[in-house]
């Protein structure tokens, strides 16, 4: 769950997290796989928690129109488009890795590297 349950929009965001066309599902992935919760996203994008909720309800960028869509979404949320694009690419990479079942392996490899050092 990426957004606090105390907000009145929490049930809406929770439901939207299961919808792959919306940002909410990507933010949920970032939360689950990278520990980037609502507060962390808010800090990273330098926006209010309310803006993170509004981002969660936006549609993800269309392939072929990513730059335009990210720009429009960044303006709507009130953040920097480069930060938003970076977050989006990180989320997408995590989703792709999760789909391929590689995340666990990568994490294990990272832990092993840390242990070796």
């Amino acid at each position, binding site marked *: 769950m990426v957004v606090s349950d105390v907000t009145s929009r929490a049930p809406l965001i929770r439901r939207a997290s299961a919808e792959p*066309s*919306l940002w909410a599902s990507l933010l949920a992935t970032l939360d689950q796989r990278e520990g980037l919760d609502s507060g962390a996203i808010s800090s990273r994008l330098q926006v209010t928690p309310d803006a993170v909720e509004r981002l969660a309800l936006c*549609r993800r960028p269309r392939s072929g129109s990513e730059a335009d*869509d990210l720009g429009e979404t960044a303006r709507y949320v009130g953040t920097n488009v480069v930060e938003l694009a970076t977050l989006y690419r990180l989320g997408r990479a995590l989703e792709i890795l999760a789909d391929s079942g590689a995340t666990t392996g990568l994490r294990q490899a990272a832990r092993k590297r840390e242990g070796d050092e």
Partner: protein
Amino acid sequence: MRRPDDTELLRLHANLVAANPTASAEIAEILYEWLMRRLKAAVPYASTEDVADVAADALVRYLANPDRFRPERGMGLAGFLLMDARGDLLNLLDSKRPQHRPTPLSDAVADQLEDRNIRSMTQERMLERLPSQLDERVLALLPDQRDRGILELMMDGVRDSDAYAALMGLRERSRDIQAREVKRAKDRIRARLKRGGIRRD
């Protein structure tokens, strides 16, 4: 809370269909709280949690697949989502209740109301499921839920007196009595709205 502006929603719906990235958030911003309030008002015995979940489901289902809403059918987006969510809420509450099988409506009435997806319903269930197209002023003039239902049928241009008779609980009465009582109810509602300064073109 005022009913959302249908023209603005229609514009946002067109943006959503055109895959505008922020239209979904803008629509949710306008409609989610309104949907919850109207659902709670329509089905006051439902829990706040059920109302919030059902409103969220209906809204996200629409955002994911906006073609489900067909503006050409004449119903606004707010009314469409309210009707959808109200049906889900009643189904959810039904599933939590002891079994109850409603008396089906006659085919004539069901045909009239087919677009509203309210076949096989008792009078009480029809009243609960009717979409609310009425603004706050009209609601204040018509505190009775049955009168509101009759007005909504009138606004939708429903002419078959079977639909009105079903709403009024007159299905077992003779045709003459049905016609007389339906006319009386319609005249009374028109007069009350007129006295309240509301005119229908």
